């Protein structure tokens, strides 16, 4: 419960936040804090400075463009996404957010924080990859657009470099999506999860099996299980699932996600 000493700064603008992050090697952006604060409690990580992104209107808001593209501010909470009329344009987003942890966490946790922490068991990294999201990363040099597939680099590591911020996630129009997971109790930690989209062929992003989401494709949902098996996965073993069991679960949830996507 007891964090190491840390400096706290509440910038008034994204520009100020970027300066603070660039100027301080040990600074980290604080989004919802539902992962970062916990890791700091365990003292498994201890940034020197927290740059609080809460209350920056530039990072909020959900906009639906005429072509159906959703632009979601990185500091949008799960609850805000679930309740957003615009976000219904891509129904899977709200459906998946509704199964993350619990009300308190959903009220505070943000989609930007979820993808930036990129814990292998998180829901959103595979979902973002599956729906073909584009991440807008802002730095001193200006903004970069990074496809979700290239965004995730490792556990707790993403394309957001030192002195940069994820500001926005853009998601193209679409309805034929699916998500399936086997969790530790209802709404618990994912032992295996997969997000799928059908767009002609079936594209499934697998979570929980590697440091970053793994994409497999097939002509139809029936082909997905084989695609998973031949993807050369080496999933981690932990107290809840051995590598072998996790691999098996992944073939099942991948197929179920694909079937759900195809059925819509």
């Amino acid at each position, binding site marked *: *419960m*007891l*964090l*190491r*000493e840390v400096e706290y700064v509440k910038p008034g603008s994204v520009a100020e936040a970027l300066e603070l992050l660039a100027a301080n090697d040990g600074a980290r952006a604080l989004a919802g804090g539902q992962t970062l604060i916990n890791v700091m409690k*365990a*003292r498994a990580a201890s940034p020197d400075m927290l740059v609080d992104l809460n209350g920056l209107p530039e990072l909020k808001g959900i906009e639906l463009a005429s072509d159906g593209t959703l632009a979601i501010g990185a500091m949008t909470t799960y609850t805000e996404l679930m309740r957003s009329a615009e976000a219904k344009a891509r129904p899977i987003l709200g459906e998946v957010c509704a199964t993350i942890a*619990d009300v308190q966490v959903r009220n505070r946790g943000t989609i930007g924080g979820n993808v930036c922490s990129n814990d292998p068991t998180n829901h959103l990294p595979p979902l973002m990859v599956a729906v073909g999201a584009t991440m807008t990363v802002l730095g001193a040099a200006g903004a970069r657009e990074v496809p979700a597939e290239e965004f995730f680099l490792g556990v707790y590591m993403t394309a957001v470099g030192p002195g940069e911020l994820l500001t926005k996630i853009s998601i193209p129009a679409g309805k034929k999506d699916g998500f399936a997971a*086997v969790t*530790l*109790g*209802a*709404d*618990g*930690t994912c*032992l295996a999860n997969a997000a799928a989209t059908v767009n002609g062929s079936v594209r499934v992003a697998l979570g929980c099996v590697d440091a970053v989401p793994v994409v497999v494709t097939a002509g139809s949902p029936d082909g997905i299980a084989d695609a998973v098996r031949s993807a050369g996965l080496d999933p981690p073993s*932990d*107290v*809840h*699932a*051995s590598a072998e*069991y996790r691999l*098996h*679960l992944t073939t*099942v949830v991948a197929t179920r996600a694909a079937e759900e996507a195809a059925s819509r």
Partner: protein
Amino acid sequence: MTESSSTTLAPEKVEVQKGWGGQSLKRKEDKRLLQGEGVFVDDVKRHGMGYLHFVRSPYAHAHITRIDVSAAEAMEGVYGTLTGEEVAALTEPFFQISSVPGANIKDYALAVGKVRYVGEAVVAVVAETRELARDASELVEVDYEPLPALVDARQAQEPGAPVLHDDAGGNLMWSGLYSWGDVDSAFAEADRVIEIDELHFHRFNSTPLECDGALVEFNRGVEQWTIHTNNQFPGFAAIMMGPAMQVGLDKLRFVTQDIGGGFGNKITSHPQLVVCCLLARKLNRAIQWTEWRTDFHMSMSHGNERWFQETKVAVSSDGTLLGFKTKALDDAGAWLRYEPLGGVIWAQVTPGMYRWRHIELEFTQVATNKAPVSPNRGYSRMQHLWFTERIIDIVAHELGLDPVEVRKKNYIRAEDMPYETPNGCVYDSGDYARMLDLALELIGYDGLGARREQAKANGKLLGVGIGSTLDSGTNNFGQSRMINPELQFSGNNEVATVKLDIFGEIVVTLGTTPQGQGHETTAAQVVADILKCSPDDVHVRAGHDSYWNSHAGFSGTYASQFAVTGLGAVKGATEMLRDEIFKLAGAVFGGVPAEALELADGGIRIKESPDAFLPFMACGAIINANNAGLPEDLDVTLNCRYVYRPPFQVPDVEKKFGNLTLTYAAQIHVAVVEIDPETGYYEIVDYAAVDDCGKRINPQIVEGQVMGATAQAIGAAMHEIYEYDEDGNLLTPNFYDYHVPHALDMPPLATGAIESPSPFTPLGTKGMGEGGGAGIHAISAAIQDATGKTVTNSHNPYQRVWELLQ
């Protein structure tokens, strides 16, 4: 929408209740708790108190080669530290319950020279704030020389296994052979001998939501410690701490108000309390210790992990059980903090609910590099009853018999009650077959065939399982002599005082340390019935204070006994007070005999002329403040202390024979599971729990205990486990990986009750609350039923179920 829970009574079995006893009176405790005004240990503060933080071992097994606290002590805001060397110099090792070899280990409040499990406390640091104390703990330098870790009890006695305690000459802590009846001839005349190679009961505990803690003050003038703590068995803590600290028990004052759950897990905090006491004296300031969740998981009171090996069961072809033989191997973890009592406690329920008479069990307890085990709801009996229930279902499976029929054929019958078990325990009352019928009725047993088909049509596997347990309550501590004949413990006791104060207040003081069992309410119900007043007029003091002179050697709240020992004491003290009120009134009315008087409307009056009425207020005022002129020989104080002592004999230590507990409440649970064969994922889709704890003073409180125990069983059966890797790292040190049930995980529940009053207790009640193990048995059985595969482990997460199906 279906009700999440419903209650059914077996009407013909429930006595019509008169008075307050038997009513579901709303709890007196609730008002403060609902307003955030309870006082839990972490709410207690003192001026200038220092916050304690423990430096814990990152290694499961290692020599401590160097400890340097200088950097920590030099830090600003740090008040001081305590090391194992200091503890060893200032205290004696804790008294050991075990006979040799376990008796030879040297257990101190902090690790001395060696660490034996991850999370063991090595150094204590005290500072001005919680944060500073933890900061400073990171400056404490400890050098370790890692040793190989022993994490599997089955390897503990193999040659070359790492040895935890050189003093004990090996990892064997205690062993004993229990044999009753004529086992050999039972096996000789058996039609079938069923062999079960190995059954495993896993390691978990009840994780009370409030962890342990203390605020300890030292009064230099009288050299006495005041220990505000949530320890649930101060009597035990005191007899552990006094000799270790070489002080009389009058120097240790235990104070408790509200406790955030205990379930047995808060009995063995005496090592941490000793550290607080030593630091309070050393630093001359109040010491505040908060145990955090991760600390609790790593170091506090895990439940006993147990293997049952080479089990042989003697049965007739019709499913009649004759007897069994087995070898129980118990994993005590690194220290014997309450152990090896688990090595005899199981024997309270030796035959389970069944009539077999020929039983042999070889019990062995070993030390491993894991957190020490201590009592956990259902302590040691739960492990054994899971074993006996597994036997029933495995036998039924092997013989192709219906588990319901095998149970009914072998259950001890109502007409056999009171029933003496092969080892001399006396089951006081009960009707197990009737309970099973009620449970099956509640679950809709007859309709399950159709549901099975329906599930199959959906690609699911449906299974039903029964769990029968006994909740043996009110220990005869004489059973400890079977562990160590030297011990001078036997019987049991509990205390209550009831007094009538100046303004007529009826004040009740208990020796117990409730953690949510509603003692303030049920005690008031008992008092009100005797004094013919309203429970609202009865003021039951909240919590425990050993200054109140209302505690005895075994005072506390543990082992299913309040309804017998606690309420027995309340009844005794209240009857004494009632008789004194009669005496006083007789004198005040000028020599009116007791037979001519009666209690009514919060006072006492003359039956024939009700106008002659003396309210309790007058009684209290006369004795306490206006007593001139009362007859000299009037021996009345209106302040009555009563010690309830259950009728026990010292058991026969040679034969390991005798009555080990006074009451035997019974539970029969039925669980219906639905398994997704593709993943092993499963849900409990229906659940029924039938309880018989004799006369119920407050049925709603009793049902609450049944529900809570059931939920804990569901968590333990499906998810909860303290799993270690081969290096002795705990893999489930927090609520992320140690998954306890949440609201969405709970199945629909139907509860039922029958009442078989105990002939042996003051109120016909039985201790209860620990019967939840039934849920673990029921879920193991349901998974076996659904998969058709023998279930040999009490912990069945999705992966294990999937593996069963491969």
